[in-house]
């Protein structure tokens, strides 16, 4: 399991020099990806379209420039580069990525969820039945007893705004509250290169943690009805006004 996590990190981490992602960032070229890459790229491509370009794996450079870099300098640089559009920067053929610019990929919006799925898969291959893989913020449950999960209030972490039941599903939460600095945070709209401010927390429940994680981020940028044409999921999200919106089919209770 640790070897699986290390493999993943060595491919996708933006924070280590020896990763594939760091190599790609140095020069445009064609790069072969490991066998786990297709579902991740496919999800990003679907979300890029569903959010009209707001959610992109190409926000790496912008995050770095805002100060979210490997040393956590947390000091925004004076100039910010525009986030390139997918078509101008990347082509993905199912196993190889061709970059047309020195692209700094950031798969932070769905990568951790995907790793949760991959770890759960390792456990399944080893005959482990009932499982909960919890990566803080993202988890997957498999078993006969549902999990009761509190939805943490983004403005007061000692409080919950509701409780949902999760069984044989994955759930991911996203909020900028723990990763904010200098009036900035880590959830960027690729169209502006700047943090979003309309939504302050999201929760998504889906069949895989890859999807749930990606959707939790997408809910910051896109209307749930738009995402529902492409994905099957339940959600809760909180606006900066304090108002909460949730799926009619949510399996749970909100404290209204």
């Amino acid at each position, binding site marked *: 399991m640790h070897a699986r996590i290390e493999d993943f990190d060595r491919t996708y981490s933006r924070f280590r020099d020896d990763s594939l992602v760091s190599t790609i960032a140095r020069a445009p070229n064609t790069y072969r990806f490991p066998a786990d890459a297709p579902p991740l790229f496919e999800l990003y491509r679907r979300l890029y379209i569903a959010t009209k370009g707001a959610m992109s794996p190409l926000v790496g450079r912008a995050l770095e420039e805002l100060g979210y870099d490997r040393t956590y300098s947390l000091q925004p640089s004076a100039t910010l580069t525009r986030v390139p559009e997918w078509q101008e920067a990347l082509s993905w053929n199912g196993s190889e990525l061709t970059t047309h610019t020195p692209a700094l990929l950031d798969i932070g919006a769905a990568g951790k969820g995907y790793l949760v799925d991959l770890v759960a898969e390792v456990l399944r291959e080893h005959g482990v039945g009932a499982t909960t893989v919890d990566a803080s913020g993202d988890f997957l449950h498999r078993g006969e007893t549902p999990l009761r999960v509190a939805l943490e209030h983004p403005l007061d972490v000692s409080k919950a705004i509701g409780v949902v039941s999760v069984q044989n599903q994955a759930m991911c939460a996203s909020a900028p509250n723990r990763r904010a600095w200098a009036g900035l945070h880590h959830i960027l709209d690729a169209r502006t290169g700047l943090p979003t401010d309309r939504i302050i927390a999201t929760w998504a429940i889906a069949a895989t943690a890859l999807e749930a994680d990606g959707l939790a981020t997408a809910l910051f940028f896109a209307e749930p009805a738009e995402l529902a044409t492409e994905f099957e999921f339940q959600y809760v999200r909180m606006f900066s006004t304090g108002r909460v919106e949730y799926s009619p089919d949510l399996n749970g209770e909100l404290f*209204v």
Partner: protein
Amino acid sequence: MRSLADNKTATALFAGITLVGALSACSSPATGTDSSVTGGAPATANGTYTDGTYTETGNYTSPNGAEKVDVTLTLESNLITDVTVVGFGESPNSKQYQGQFINGIAAIVVGKNIDKLSVDKVAGSSLTSGGFTKAVDAIKADALAK
């Protein structure tokens, strides 16, 4: 836990009515027209409703001009079993309001203390690494020193 799922359609309808009311209240009175009724006529005086699917168009004037929403609901034995809402808002503002209305149920929530709830897990933003926390502390210290 279960109650919310069971009452979903009724709640959705109430949320809808509130929103249409709120939008129309800030401008001209809303008007409704029956555009289609299938399966029977609605509402007798004693509160018994005829089963069927009803579609109603609500017109209202927002600061952005004339707007409308189509609401279709299905009644069975005096219970609402299905609700569909289609909005036709053209301005970004209307799209936003109607989107919120159509997408899901809107509510104002009150927080409850997590330690008083019986739950297996808490879902919130992921915990931050030590490095990040230290960096934020350093920025705060810098800001204080200036």
